[in-house]
């Protein structure tokens, strides 16, 4: 019997069923089966106990926590972008504004996983016409921070938006958002000053963490120029809103605004957009003229115009230039390359560079007033006693010959005449006097130059100036510091002599030079150039703007130069534009407003392809002011490789005066003289 299942049938179990004599079933519930049923019963009880405990634990003990999780699942806080403040010119014309645009954003957290993710990236990249690999890399990088969306593209075409909206279920995590795009009504005008706006980079986030304003990923930030320096005022404060989304990130219901966005405030510039346009045109025109004068390597240039009374910048033009709109919306890598890529920048002659503040040029003859003022202050020069202006002069133990630009002159000149004709040998004599004065005297000229603002940034409010190390005012100590060989370390008579005419090692930015000429014009006070005059709240249409903050000009500080010395220099600068032998008289003499100014033709070593190393090119300079006796505008122009100062830079400067004073010159006579 033992091999039969459950053995011999015995009594019916009393446990589940009482004995029923009426049923004479031959089959009996055996104890073995009863045991096994009991085992199943225990298993069932254990199973249900486990389920109940788990349910109790999830629903009752941690219910609140899961409820939070479920609610966070569906609520997403989105940022409501604040419209960025405008940038206005001096007269309130909008130089940088906003236009509404559509942006496609991507929430990495909602994207499909694994293969599906990259398939989606490829499709999205194809639809929006962006590089798929770059997008995939961005997605991978953002994987660590799924709460910040990636801006795939701004300024998306309507067709693309419609397609994405229709196929929303194929693109989980894609969000289409209204955004504001920077708009430049004057296109490339003032590009290097205005700067551009971009999405905040991880580096910038780190840098600004402790700053006054808190930036978050995806925020826009000014990257350069006015946009960067005054970002604090322009950016406004983004608002917040909550949306309910379903599991695929699709919006359910409407947007609930939690906090309104505060629009950014407008920034008003000292710039006059008309003068700016005239200046930029003038450079292009000067380049054409220079080419006509066989200056085939003419490449770029800079013009700066400032108010000599307070340093307000009226124009700051740099050429080549670019359209800041290349940074907006659909970015064309080809157009952006000259601004971000070294080789492309070189090929395009560095359009991103602000030549007014960032590039130091040898000043050449426009430096002569510096020498003259310093020499008079040091009592090395009496302005109205004569020095012979010769065709050449010989200095030093090695009998070095220094030539005048005009080989046919040989007559005594006083300072105004020497400035007017830009006599080099006159200033060689002055430079040699500094050298002869002994060790201390050899750096007196340089000390005055520093007093006049050379060798250091001017303190322009938007910054971006060449560092002191690039704007060199060479001294014996500087030579010693800078050079290796004993020969080069020495300060020779030639150094003093060349410095006197603004050659050899000295280099200045156009802005430094403009500031110096402003000092001459305003009677010896050094101004601090500035571009932004205030911050204002733009009123509704037809209402006056509310000025929130003024940035008053820094009070000009008196450099302590003798008014009589200044007067002699001013006389010379007037004569240069008016007397018959003045170097730019041909350009300015007939202009209705009296202009004083100095030409410069600075030799600079320029390495150009196809030319020998050390090839010299003339940098065409002109700096001056007008009206001569009560100056309201200082203009400094430099045309790179443009030849004679009177040929390229002076006519360019004239255009700026024409625009500023609203007067036309009677067809200027262009002469090839220095």
């Amino acid at each position: 019997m033992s091999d039969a299942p459950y053995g011999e049938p015995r009594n019916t179990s009393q446990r589940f069923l009482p004995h029923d004599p009426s049923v004479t079933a031959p089959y009996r519930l055996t104890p073995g089966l009863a045991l096994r049923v009991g085992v199943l019963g225990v298993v069932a009880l254990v199973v249900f106990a486990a389920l109940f405990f788990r349910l109790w634990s999830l629903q009752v003990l941690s219910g609140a926590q899961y409820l939070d999780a479920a609610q966070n699942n569906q609520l997403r806080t989105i940022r409501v972008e604040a419209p960025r403040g405008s940038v206005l010119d001096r007269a309130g014309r909008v130089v940088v504004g906003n236009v509404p645009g559509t942006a496609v954003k991507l929430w990495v957290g909602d994207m499909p996983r694994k293969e599906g993710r990259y398939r989606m990236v490829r499709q999205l990249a194809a639809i929006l016409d962006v590089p798929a690999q770059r997008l995939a890399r961005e997605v991978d990088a953002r994987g660590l921070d799924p709460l910040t969306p990636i801006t795939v593209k701004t300024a998306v075409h309507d067709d693309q938006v419609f397609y994405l909206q229709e196929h929303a279920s194929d693109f989980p995590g894609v969000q289409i958002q209204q955004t504001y795009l920077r708009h430049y009504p004057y296109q490339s005008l003032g590009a290097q000053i205005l700067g551009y706006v971009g999405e905040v980079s991880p580096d910038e986030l780190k840098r600004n963490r402790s700053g006054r304003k808190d930036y978050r990923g995806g925020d826009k930030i000014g990257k350069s120029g006015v946009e960067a320096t005054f970002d604090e005022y322009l950016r406004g404060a983004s608002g917040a809103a909550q949306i309910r989304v379903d599991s695929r990130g699709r919006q359910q219901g409407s947007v609930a605004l939690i906090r309104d966005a505060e629009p950014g405030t407008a920034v008003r510039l000292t710039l006059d957009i008309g003068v700016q346009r005239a200046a930029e045109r003038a450079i292009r025109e000067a380049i054409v003229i220079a080419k006509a004068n066989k200056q085939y390597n003419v490449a770029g240039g800079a013009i700066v115009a400032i108010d000599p009374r307070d340093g307000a910048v009226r124009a700051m033009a740099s050429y080549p230039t670019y359209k800041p709109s290349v940074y907006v919306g659909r970015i064309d890598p080809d157009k952006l390359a000259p601004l971000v890529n070294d080789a492309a920048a070189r090929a395009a002659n560095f359009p991103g560079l602000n030549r007014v503040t960032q590039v130091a040029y040898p000043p050449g003859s426009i430096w002569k007033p510096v020498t003259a003022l310093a020499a008079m202050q040091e009592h090395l020069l009496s302005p109205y006693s004569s020095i012979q202006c010769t065709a050449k002069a010989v200095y030093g133990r090695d009998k070095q010959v220094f030539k005048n630009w005009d080989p046919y002159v040989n007559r005594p000149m006083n300072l105004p005449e020497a400035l007017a004709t830009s006599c080099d040998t006159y200033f060689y004599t002055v430079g040699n006097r500094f050298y002869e004065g002994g060790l201390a005297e050899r750096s007196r000229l340089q000390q005055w130059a520093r007093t006049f603002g050379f060798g250091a940034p001017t303190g322009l409010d938007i910054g971006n100036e060449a560092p002191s190390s690039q704007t060199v005012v060479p001294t014996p100590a500087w030579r010693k510091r800078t050079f290796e060989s004993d020969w080069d370390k020495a300060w020779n008579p030639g150094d003093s002599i060349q410095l006197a005419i603004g050659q050899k090692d000295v280099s200045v930015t156009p802005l430094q030079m403009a500031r110096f000429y402003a000092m001459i014009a305003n009677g010896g006070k050094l101004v601090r150039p500035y571009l932004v005059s205030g911050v204002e709240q733009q009123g509704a249409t037809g209402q006056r703007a509310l000025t929130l903050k003024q940035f008053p000009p820094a009070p000009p500080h008196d450099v302590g130069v003798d008014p009589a010395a200044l007067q002699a220099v001013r006389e010379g600068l007037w004569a240069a534009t008016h007397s018959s032998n003045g170097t730019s008289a041909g350009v300015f003499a007939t202009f209705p407003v009296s202009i004083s100014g100095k030409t410069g033709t600075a030799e600079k070593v320029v390495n150009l392809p196809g030319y020998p190393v050390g090839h010299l090119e003339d940098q065409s300079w002109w700096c001056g002011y007008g009206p001569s006796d009560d100056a309201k505008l200082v203009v400094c122009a430099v045309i790179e490789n443009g030849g004679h100062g009177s040929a390229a830079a002076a006519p360019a400067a004239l255009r700026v005066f024409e625009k500023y004073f609203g007067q036309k010159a009677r067809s200027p006579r262009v002469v090839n003289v220095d």
Partner: protein
Amino acid sequence: MIVDARSRTSSFASSAPGAYDLGSILRRIDWLLLFAVATLVAYGLWAIAGITRFDVPGHPDYYVVRQAVAVAVGVAGMLVAIVVSPSVYQRHWRVLYGGTIGVMLFVIAFVGAVRGSKRWIDLGPFQFQPSEFGKILFVLAIAGFLVERGRRVGEFSTVLAAVGLGLLPMGLVFLQPDLGSALVYGAALAAVLFLAGVRWLHLAAIGGGAIIVVVGVLWFLPVAGIPILKPYQTDRLTGFTNPESDPGGLTYNVTQSRTAVGAGGLSGRGVEGASQTRLDYLPEHATDFVFASLAEQRGFVGTSILLLLYLLVVWRGLRVVTVAGDLYGAIVAGGIVFAFLFQVFVNVGMTMGIAPVTGIPLPFVTVGGSSIVTNLLAIGVLQSIHARGRVERSR
């Protein structure tokens, strides 16, 4: 004496139509079980009504209506199953077995895949899922085989033969692929062997073999380069042991499901407020994860009612095992009840992260005609066994 028992069983079966007319059969069914099932079906329909309200825009009752039709079909099937004597199945277990295998082969050979899986046969507006019906046919057939072997159940060769018979349909279902149903078959096979009186030693051997197979399939063979399961199947089966490993990917479903269950709290968030279900965070909320949806909408109170109803069914089912009129009835009842218990546990456990994720339906609740019809048929078989068992007169 099994020989005697068998002869008596056959005589009992042959005399059944005379001894039990329709009226007496209906009078002798387990009314408590019927009550439990009726309540479950009604509760399930009510739950589905809430869970699927927003699934088909404009047709809040779409799924409920279809489910109700399936219930009607299932109730009819249940009545038929009550009337039919289990001894019929016992005699014709080979036909049942052969039919089951045949339909499954048909599914694999001719049916187009839906979501990568061949499970359904189209019947006009309804689909028929053979692996669901297979669950009950399987129990009836294997039990028939074991009872036919009689006393030789104690021999290991019989056990192996039964396991072999069971593995064939399991394998076919697995190939569809429908891993969940294959597991249910396995559970039913274990219960049938257990109640048929297979020796403990043999049970231990079979259990050991099963463990070796599971470990092999999940770990060793994939390592050796022979994947039996698809990667997602392995991931799901093992994922619940380490729920925080990949909250966004593989265990996304379980994480969302647990969140839904927990968010339900004591009394539930209601149909409108149950965002996990309504906004589709919870995948498959009308089928595999229906319990999580119910938990979110109706809370601990709602899920407790459901679990208590299940417990009632299991208790009554186990009681049927003890009152069965013959060994075949006992084994069949045990297999059905255990398969039922297994499905409840794995499905509910899965939504709470304590059981692997497999596509096992929640009996009487999951939207799906085949499932509910099968479950009602199974209850019919249980009732049939009960009605022909040893009845308390006192009732």
